[in-house]
């Protein structure tokens, strides 16, 4: 059972990523969007009054979350064409595995977007990211897991509604609040060379959010696709 769950997840994720690799549409639009947001943030301030470091954490996280949101709907939109989701659901594979696969695919997609955005961010904002890099990556991974999991579950529902593209941001926004506030706080500290141990409260919050919502989404996915 466990191995078939994992196999299903991996093959669903591999399939989605292969499709994305061949077209690169979501990927290209996410990256272009990320560059645009970073540029707007940079030019929004008076350079003599506000330093780069003051605005950098929010710029980074607005870019991460908005650019990822562009791609999140794609995982289930793919399955809407020719009602492919029905074909997946009538096969004898664990549905939790299908959801896990979609989450993994989305995580990989968002991770690549983030890994490209991060050096661009360091370049545009002239902030030193090398020294706090491992901690920064760990925090990014925790926050990303949180909103990608919830976003994937919500997108499984919204793609079957009338205004799919508009609905995801409306529903996802409140769920972004705790992980992104935490991530922004920690990022600001890390960029100012403060140690990660200063933020144990936020880290605990991120970790418990991850655990609670990954578990809840795995349990609730069944209810979003049964028919």
């Amino acid at each position, binding site marked *: 059972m466990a191995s078939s769950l994992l196999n299903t997840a991996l093959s669903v994720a591999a399939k989605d990523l292969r499709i994305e690799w061949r077209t690169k549409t979501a990927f290209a639009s996410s990256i272009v969007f990320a560059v645009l947001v970073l540029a707007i943030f940079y030019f929004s301030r008076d350079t003599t009054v506000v330093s780069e470091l003051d605005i950098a954490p929010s710029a980074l996280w607005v870019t991460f979350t908005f650019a990822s949101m562009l791609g999140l709907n794609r995982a289930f939109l793919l399955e809407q064409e020719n009602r492919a989701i029905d074909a997946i659901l009538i096969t004898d594979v664990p549905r939790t595995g299908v959801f896990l696969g979609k989450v993994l695919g989305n995580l990989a997609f968002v991770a690549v977007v983030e890994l490209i955005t991060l050096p661009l961010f360091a370049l545009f904002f002239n902030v030193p990211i090398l020294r706090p890099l491992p901690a920064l990556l760990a925090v990014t991974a925790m926050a990303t897991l949180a909103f990608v999991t919830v976003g994937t579950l919500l997108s499984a529902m919204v793609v*079957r*509604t*009338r205004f799919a593209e508009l609905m995801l941001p409306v529903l996802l926004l*409140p769920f972004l609040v705790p992980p992104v*506030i935490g991530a922004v706080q920690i990022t600001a500290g890390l960029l100012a060379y403060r140690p990660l141990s200063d933020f144990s409260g936020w880290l605990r*919050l991120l970790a418990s959010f991850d655990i*609670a919502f990954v578990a*809840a989404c795995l349990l*609730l996915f069944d*209810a979003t696709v049964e028919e």
Partner: protein
Amino acid sequence: MTNSNPIERLLKRGWTLTIAALLSLVAVYVRVVYFTPVESTQGPAQKIFYVHVPSAWAALVAFAVTGIVSLLYLKRRDEKLDTIGAASAEVGLVFGAVMLTTGPIWGKVIWGAWWAWDAKLTSTLFLYILFVGYVVLRGAVVDPEMRARFSAVVGILALILVPFIYFSVNMFRTLHPEPPVLRSGGPALPGSMLLTLMLSVVVFSVLYVGFLMVRYSLSVLKDLREKRAADGIS
């Protein structure tokens, strides 16, 4: 036809309760304005408290009912539960709107600012947005069974989210010194003020139940009519 009678009775009872609650609300306001002492430091501005707190209470009860009913729906698959959840969410948005407008009016006078990113304000704001999403989602799904399932999922996620939002904003605040105006010293209310507040909370709760009954029975009647119309066509 036989099915619609109890619902129409419920609708009538809901209206009676709502009108009774609205009349009592007038009585409570009279008591608030004329028969409750003016608070010594805040002055007349404090009077809004008797509207703000009860509406916040009613809104949070309404959202909690939606969350709990969502959980029950996924277990029992009773469409009544879904209708109750939807009705409660809509009524909650009404009370929430009262809460979110009276709060800043008071804040402007007492804090000197319309808004503060305080834990309570922020969590209620995002809770409100979440239920706006809930209602919008319902409007975008055509199939009633699918709509019920989807909104139940959102309702349950909302239930889990609330403590996280509260803690995250609370932690942000505690890292910074709290402005002295924001400090709520847990005011021990004098008896007459407490009584007014309690009366107001009771009236708002009755109003919530009245609204809920009306909204629920109207939804059921609408579904019945749609079903009849669909049967007529086929």
